[in-house]
């Protein structure tokens, strides 16, 4: 990783097309301005993390893991019963 020290008002250039400006520095946070062409998406890293976790979550959860999770959340003792998409019956309620 390249590490650069910058002050408020200074900038970093990435190639010819991307500029990152340090606009404001406050205790614990920094305000950045990004200049980039439209075709280069600029995202907060949390968006990427959420995309990755969403894609992983969409793979589904094995029935026995889900049943185990429900038992733990309810504070019940382990028992052999599976309930999950696939194993579950008709959904009954729509909030």
């Amino acid at each position, binding site marked *: 990783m390249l590490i650069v020290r910058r002050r408020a008002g200074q900038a970093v250039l990435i190639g010819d097309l991307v500029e990152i400006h340090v606009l404001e520095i406050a205790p614990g946070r920094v305000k950045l301005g990004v200049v980039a062409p439209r075709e280069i998406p600029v995202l907060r890293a*949390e968006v990427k993390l959420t*995309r990755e976790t969403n894609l992983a979550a969409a793979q589904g959860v094995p029935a026995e893991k889900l049943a185990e999770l429900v038992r733990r959340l309810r504070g019940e003792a382990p028992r052999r019963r599976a309930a999950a998409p696939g194993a579950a019956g008709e959904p009954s309620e729509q*909030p």
Partner: protein
Amino acid sequence: MQFCTRHFGTIEYDPEAVFEFPAGLPGFEDQHRFLALRQPNIEPIVFLQSLDRPDLCFITLPVQTIEPGYRLAISAEDLRLLGLPEDRQPEMGRQVLCLAIVAVAEGRPPTANLLAPVVLNLENRRAVQAILSDSPYSHRHPLPGGGEEDTVCSSCGAGPARRS
């Protein structure tokens, strides 16, 4: 209305129960319509079933069941998408339902994304996965089920127990 899902078979639903995600969800930007489904036998889990993709169903938990003191910090942009006033956070439970998407990976404890709750506006049925700004929460918040929270006492071998 009827919809054929992969996990639940054909389900009957009220069109008024559909939640509209104007921006989709990160990774699923083209998915705009979901149903929130509950089943008494596996409360408190809420399934978020896509009405565009029969095989897409997220497993979620209301955030308060994971973190009772959960605090929302929805961005102005997301509040606008939800059709809510931008000057204050909505009231969880009454105005909005906040669900954390659960992921279970092999060999790891299940986790929930508390950093980016799915916020459902119960009044106008609009919804968004709100990536909270300045949030103390993780996108991989560990859930019970990994076995760590009830490991036995290493010195005496006793599990969590009450003194008699």
